[in-house]
C-alpha cells in the first residue's frame, strides 16, 4: 500500500494541484483539448502565443493587399472587395483565451510573444482582461546583427518586461532562451524587474537545408528526452539565486524527468511534445507514475524535495559547472581534513 504524496506546488504565486503544466502549444487553442487535459489532471495551461511578428506581418500583408494595384488604373480602383472585419489575429486570440477560461477550471496562462516595446504590449492588458490568470511573455528573438551588443539586447528585454509589468496586475512569467552570456545575472535582473517566474527554455526553430531545392527548410521538431538536461542545469543554478518561480520546459517526457527537474529547483514542469505525441492522456500517466515513484521512494510532498538537488544543495555542484567532457576530477584530499 503506497501512501498519498502531496503533489501541489506554487507557481507565480498560484497554488497548483500538481507540477504538470501544459506548455504553450497551438493544440491548446482547442476547447476539446483543454477539456481532455483537465480531465487527465493537468494543473494549468499556457495558451499558444500571440506573436507580434505574425500579427504585424498579417497586418502589413493585408494592408498591402488592399493597396496592391489600387488607384493605378482608371477601370479598377482596387482588386479586392473592401473588408472591414478582417481579423489579423489579436481579437481571435483574445476570444480563445476567454473561451479557455470558460471551458476549464484550472488556471489559464496567456502567452505573448514580442520583442519591441511600444504599442505591442497593450495586448498584455487585453489578455488580462480576457480572464487569463497570468501572462507568459515569450521573448523569442534572434539577435542576428553583429553590431548589436549583449547589453543592448538585455536592456531591450528589460525595458519590454518593465513595460508589460506596468500594464498588468496578474503574475508575469518570462520565457527565454538559453543563449545569454551571463544567464544567471540576466535572470536575476529579470526577477528584480518584477518578473514572477522564469520559463526555461524557449526552443528556437531549427532551420535545415533542403538539398533538392537549395533552400532553407524552416520547421520545428518535437523535443526529445535528453533536452531536459539544459533546463535541469540552469534551474539548479538559478534556484536560490533568484526570487522568481522557475518552470522547466523542453524534453519533459516522463515522470523521472519531472522529478529530476523539481529536484533541481523547478516549481513546475511544462510539457508540449509529450502531449502532441501521446495525446492529453499522457498527463494522467505522468501523474500516476509520479505518485507511485515518489510514494515508493518515501517522499511525502513535492515541496519536500523541490530544489533538493539544486546547485547549492546537491552533493557535487562542480559537476553542474563543467562544460566539457572533462574527466571527473578525483580529489585526493577530503574537505574536512
Amino acid at each position, binding site marked *: 500500500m503506497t501512501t498519498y504524496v502531496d503533489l501541489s506546488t506554487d507557481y507565480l504565486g498560484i497554488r497548483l494541484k500538481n507540477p504538470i503544466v501544459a506548455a504553450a502549444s497551438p493544440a491548446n487553442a482547442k476547447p476539446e483539448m483543454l477539456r481532455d487535459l483537465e480531465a487527465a489532471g493537468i494543473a494549468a495551461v499556457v495558451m499558444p502565443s500571440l506573436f507580434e511578428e505574425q*500579427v*504585424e506581418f*498579417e*497586418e*502589413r*500583408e*493585408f*494592408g*498591402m*493587399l*488592399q*493597396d*496592391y*494595384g*489600387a*488607384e*493605378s*488604373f*482608371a*477601370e*479598377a*480602383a*482596387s*482588386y*479586392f*472587395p*473592401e*473588408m*472591414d*472585419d*478582417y*481579423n*489579423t489575429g489579436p481579437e*481571435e486570440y483574445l476570444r480563445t483565451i476567454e473561451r479557455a477560461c470558460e471551458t476549464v477550471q484550472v488556471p489559464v496562462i496567456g502567452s505573448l510573444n514580442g520583442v519591441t516595446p*511600444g*504599442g*505591442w504590449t*497593450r495586448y498584455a492588458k487585453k489578455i488580462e482582461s480576457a480572464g487569463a490568470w497570468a501572462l507568459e511573455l515569450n521573448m523569442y528573438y534572434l539577435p542576428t546583427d553583429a553590431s548589436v551588443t549583449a547589453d543592448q539586447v538585455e536592456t531591450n528585454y528589460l525595458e519590454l518586461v518593465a513595460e508589460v509589468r506596468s500594464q498588468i496586475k496578474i503574475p508575469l512569467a518570462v520565457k527565454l532562451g538559453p543563449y545569454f552570456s551571463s544567464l544567471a545575472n540576466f535572470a536575476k535582473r529579470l526577477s528584480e524587474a518584477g518578473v514572477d517566474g522564469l520559463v526555461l527554455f524557449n526552443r528556437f526553430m531549427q532551420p535545415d537545408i533542403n538539398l533538392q531545392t*537549395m533552400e532553407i527548410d524552416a520547421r520545428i521538431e518535437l523535443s526529445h528526452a535528453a533536452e531536459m538536461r539544459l533546463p535541469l542545469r540552469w534551474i539548479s543554478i538559478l534556484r536560490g539565486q533568484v526570487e522568481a518561480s522557475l518552470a522547466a520546459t523542453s524534453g519533459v517526457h516522463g515522470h523521472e524527468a519531472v522529478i529530476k527537474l523539481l529536484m533541481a529547483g523547478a516549481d513546475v514542469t511544462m510539457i508540449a511534445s509529450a502531449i502532441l505525441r501521446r495525446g492529453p492522456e499522457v498527463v494522467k500517466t505522468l501523474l500516476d507514475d509520479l505518485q507511485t515513484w515518489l510514494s515508493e521512494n518515501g517522499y511525502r510532498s513535492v515541496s519536500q524535495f523541490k530544489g533538493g538537488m539544486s546547485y547549492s544543495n546537491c552533493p557535487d555542484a562542480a559537476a553542474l559547472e563543467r562544460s566539457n567532457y572533462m574527466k571527473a576530477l578525483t580529489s585526493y584530499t577530503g574537505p574536512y581534513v
Partner: protein
Amino acid sequence: MDVQAVTVDGNEAAAHVAYALSEVIAIYPITPASPMGELADLWATRDKPNIFGTVPEVIEMQSEGGAAGAVHGALQAGALTTTFTASQGLLLMLPNMFKIAGELTPAVFHVAARSVATHALSIFGDHSDVMAARMTGWAMLCSGGVQESHDLSVIAHSATLKARLPFVHFFDGFRTSHELNKIDLLPESVIQSMVDPEAVQAFRERALSPDRPVLRGTAQNPDVFFQAREAINPFYQDAPATVQQEMDRFAELTGRSYHLFDYVGAPDAERIIVMMGSGTGAAEEAVEALCAAGEKVGLVKVRLYRPFDVSALIAAIPDTVTGIAVLDRTKEPGAVGEPLYQDVVAAVAEQWSPAGGRPLPRITGGRYGLSSKEFTPAMAEAVLDELQKSSSRPHFTVGITDDVTHLSLAVEEGRHSEPEDVHRAVFFGLGSDGTVGANKNSVKIVGESTPLYAQGYFVYDSKKAGAVTISHLRFSPRPIHSTYLIQKADFVACHQSQFMDSRDVLAVADHGATFLLNTSFGPDEIWDRLPQEVQRQIIDKQLKFYVVDGYRLAREAGLGGRINTVMQTCFFALTNILPREEAIERIREAIQKSYGKRGESLVRKNQEAVDRTLDALNQVNVPAAVTSGHHCRQLVPTTAPDFVRKVTGVMLAGMGDHLPVSALPVDGTFLTGTSRYERRSIAQSIPIWDADICIQCGLCAFVCPHAAIRSKAFEPGVLEAAPAEFPTLETAGRELPGHRMTIQVAPDDCTGCGVCVEVCPARSKEVAKHKAINMEPKDDHLQRERENFDFFLSIPEIDRSAVRHDQVKGSQLLQPLFEFSGACAGCGETPYLKLLTQLFGDRLLVANATGCSSIYGGNLPTTPWATNAEGRGPAWSNSLFEDNAEFGLGMRLAVDHQMQSVRSRLHELRMQTDVGLVEQILAAEQETDADIARQRQRIDQLRQHLSESDTPAVRELLTSIDHLVRKSVWIVGGDGWAYDIGFGGLDHVMASGQDVNILVLDTEVYSNTGGQASKSTPRAAIAKFAAGGKKIRKKDLGMIAVDYGHVYVAKIAMGANPNQSIRAFEEAESYHGPSIILAYSPCIAHGIDMSQMMSHQKDAVNSGYWPLYRYDPRLAHEGQHAFQLDCRKPRMSFREFAMKEARFATLTRTDPAEAERLFGLAQEDIRDQWHFYEQMAGVEREIASVESHGK
C-alpha cells in the same frame, strides 16, 4: 433636419439611393459604373437593409443583357428593381428597355454615361450611350454633379412609381461618377418621404401572380398593335408634370430645388447655351463671369431629357434670347445635328411664341467633351462669343482643333480664372506609391471635418504597370462645381522625381505657387540635377520650392514604398488650407480611421511617418539663374517612324489634347509594334544574366510577361561588332553546333517583376542565392545593358527551321511579336500571348475580346503587337466584349474564302506561268512551320514569274497572292468573356467545326474592371460581387467543350508544365477544327506575390485545383483515347494551395466558419473532378473527322 455632409463620388451618391429603394439589384461590371454594383453587393453582404427593412437580393448576371432580363422579370413579379451600367452595357439592355417601357413598368437604371465604341473603345464619359437609348420610351433624368446624382436618384425612384415610366438616371462617366465631392447626404427620412407607399402598392398589385393571373407580353397583329401603342400617350403627356411635382416635394424636404430645365444667368440674356451633364458646371462659371462683366448670357441645364417637355423648355428661355447654342456630348454622324440640338430646334419651331414680336432665335449645335475631353469655362465662353458673330457657324465643335473640316471654335484658355479663395493643388504620382489614395483621404479630411468644400478628380494613364496618376484637388468655402481639370494650381507636388525629366510637371503651376518634390537629394543638392526647362519655370514663376525624401521617411517608418502619408503630411504642412496643427491632428484621426481596421501596427507606423515628415521638409534656395547643363529627355527616338514621332510622341508627353484632327487616322487603324519606342524605364531592378552559370533552358525568356528577356542564337561571326561586354555562351545540345547564344534584358522595357529570376533553376555553387539571372539595381547596369540590347536587336533572327519549336529552349529562340505591353508587372496572361506570337506570329490574326488583353494589347499611345524583319506580324482587332468568338469566326470565314478564291484564280491562270510551281503551291501541305516557309518561298517565286506578265487578271492575283499561305486565326479573351458574356457565341463557334483557335486567359475574375467574380471564379475565393466567398463551384468550360467531341481542348499552366503548354499551342493550331486552350493566368486579383506566379501555377496543378489535360479528337480517329491527363494525382491539399493566395486565405480571417465550410467543399470539388477526369482518360470515343463536320 440633421444633415450629414459626406465626401463621396457620383457612383456612391447614386448607389446609396438606389440600394435604399430597391428589392432586387441585378449587376454586371462595366467601367465606369462597376463601383455602384460593387457597393450594392458589399452592402448586401453586410446585411444592410433598404428602406423597406429588407436586404436587397443582389445578383451578378452573365452580361448586361442578362441583367436587363433579370430586372424585367423581377419587375414583372413585383419587386422594386434597379441596375447600374454604361456604354455597350446599356446597349445590350435596349431590347428589354423597350419592353419594360412598353409595359409601363416603374424602374430606374443608373447610368455612368460613357462613350460607345466606334473607331476605338473608350472607357471615358460622354452621352453616346444614353443617346442610343433615347428611343426606348424611358424617361431620362440627367445629373450634372455628385450632389445632383444623389438628389436626382431619389427623384427618379419616386417619379417612376407615380409616372409609371421607367427612368434612366444618368451622369457623366468619370467626371461625375469618379469625382469626389462634398455633398449633403439625404437622411433616410427624406428618402422614405419621397416614396409614395400607395404607388409602391399599386406597382405590386400590377405584378404577375397566380392568385390573380393576367397575361402580359402578347403577340399583336396589324389590327391592334398600333392603337395599343398609342394608348400609352397619356402617361408620356403627364410624366413631366409628375417629375416636377417630385422635384418640388424634394425641394420642400431638402431646400435643394430642381426643375425640368433650370435656367441660370442674366434674366434678359440674349445668348444662351442649352446643355446637360457635368459640362453645365463649367458653363455656369463662364456665364457667371460674363454676366459679371456685363454680358447678357445664360445657360439652360436640361434635367429631364425624356419625355422632352417643350413648354417647359420654352418657358425656361428668357424672351430676350436671340441666339441659342445647343451643346451635345455625343456624335451622330450624318444627322442634321446631334439629338439635343434637334430637340431644341424642334421645340422652338413648335412653340416659340412671337410675344412682342420677338424673332425666332438663331440656334446652333456643337459637339464637345467626347470621351471625357475637357470642357472648360473658356470653351463655354468661346461658344457664347461665337453666337455673337453674325456669321456664327450653325454646327461646330469645341475643345479640339479641327484642321480638316474646320468646325472647331478657337478657345482662349487663359481668359478664365478661378476665384482667389479656392485652393487648387495638383499631384503627380505613380499608381503604386499611394498618391491617389492619400489625396482621396485629404479630400475626405477637409470635406468631412471642416466647413470647407472639397473636390478630388484623378487622371490615370493607360498602363497597368508603372501608371502615372495626376490628382486634381480643390478646396473652397463654397460648393465646388468646377467640372474641369485644374489649369493653374497654387500647389504642385511631384511624388516621383523621374517625372521631372520626362513631363512638364510645372506647366500647371501658377505664378508664386508652392512646388514640392519628393527626391532623395537634399535642398542643397537638388537644383543642379533639374533640367534647364524646369529650372527656368521655377525661376520665372517664382515658385516656392520644397524637397522631402519621402521614400526614406516611409522606409524608416516601416511603410516600405508607400509614401502616401509622408506626402499628405507635407501637403498640409505647406498649404494653409487648415491651420498646421489642426491639419496634422486631422491626418492622425484619418490614419486611425483608415488603418485602424487593418491593424494597429499600420496605425503606429503611419503616425510615425507623420512625426518624421514634419522635421524633414526643406525649402530650396532657388538661384537667380538657370545653371543646369541638361535638358528634358526626348521621349521617342529619332529613329522612330514619322507617325510615332509626330503623333505617338506627343501623346506620350501627355500633350495628346493638342493633336489636331488631321494627325489621327480616320478609321481607327494604327501601325503595330509601337511599344518598342516608348522605353518607359519603370523598373528599379532589372535581371542581369550570369553566363557562367546558365544552363540555357530558356525558362526566363519563356515566362517574361513583357518580352523583356530575350534569347538569341547566332554564328560567332556576328560578335565582331558586339560591344565590349556582351556576354555569350557556346550553344549547348546537338542543335545549332558551332553557334553562340545570349540572354539579354531590355533594360528600359523590363517592369522589374522578377518572375524570370524566380523560375531560373541554375544556382551558383559558391553562393546559393546567386542564380544564372539575378535582379540587380538598374542604375548600375543601365548604360551597358542599353548598348547590349541595341546590339542584340541587330543580331539576325535564327533560321526558324533550325530549332525545335515544341520545347521551351527552342521556342525561346524565336522572335516574339508581342512585346513591352502595358500589362501589370508579373502578368500571368501575357507570357502565353508572347508564346503564341513566337510560334505563329507571322501568319496570325487575332480577335481579342474586350478586357485586360484588349487594353494592354490595344490601348494607346503605344501597342505591343509587333512585326518581324519582313514586316509580317499579328494583325489584331477588338470588336466587343460579348461577340469575340463570332468576330474571330468571321475572320476565319473571310480568310478561307480568300484562300479558295485565290486558289481558283491561280488554277485558271496556271498555264500562263510555271504550271509545276502552281501545282506545287495548290497541293502544298501547310501543317508545320517548315511547310509554311516552303510555301512562302514558292509564292515568292510565283510572284516573280507573274510580275513578268501584266494582265488585269494577273495584277488581281498578285494583290491576293499571300492568301495562299494558311493563316492562323486566334480568338483571345479572358474568362469574363469566355465563361459569361461571350459563352453563347463561344459555344456556337465551337459547334461550327471551323478552324479557329480559342485562347482563354483564365484569371478566374474580371481582371480589367477590378476583380469581379465570373463563373470561372472558384468556390471559396473572395472577389468583388462575391465578397463573402464564392459559394458555387467553378464552371468546367473545358468539359463542356470536350462534350462536343470534335473540339480540341487543352487545359494548361505554363508554370507547372511548360512543354505541355507549348504542345497544346502546336496541337491546337495544327488541328483543322475548333480548338480551345484554357490557360491558367495568375493575376494581381489573386492576392499573390506576382514574382512567384509560376510556383503558384505548380501548386494549382499539384493540388488538383487546375489539372492539366489535352483532349485531341485526332486521337479518337486513330482509335486511341482522346483525353489525356498531363499531371499526376493531387498530392497537396486544397488548403495548402489556397492559404498561399489572399483571395482564399482572406476568408479564413473574415469568416472562419464559412471558410472552413467552403474549403471543405472545394476539396470535395477537386476530388470529384479528379475522379471524373480519371474516368474520362479511359473513355473511348468515335468522333467523325472535323472535315465532315458541318461543311
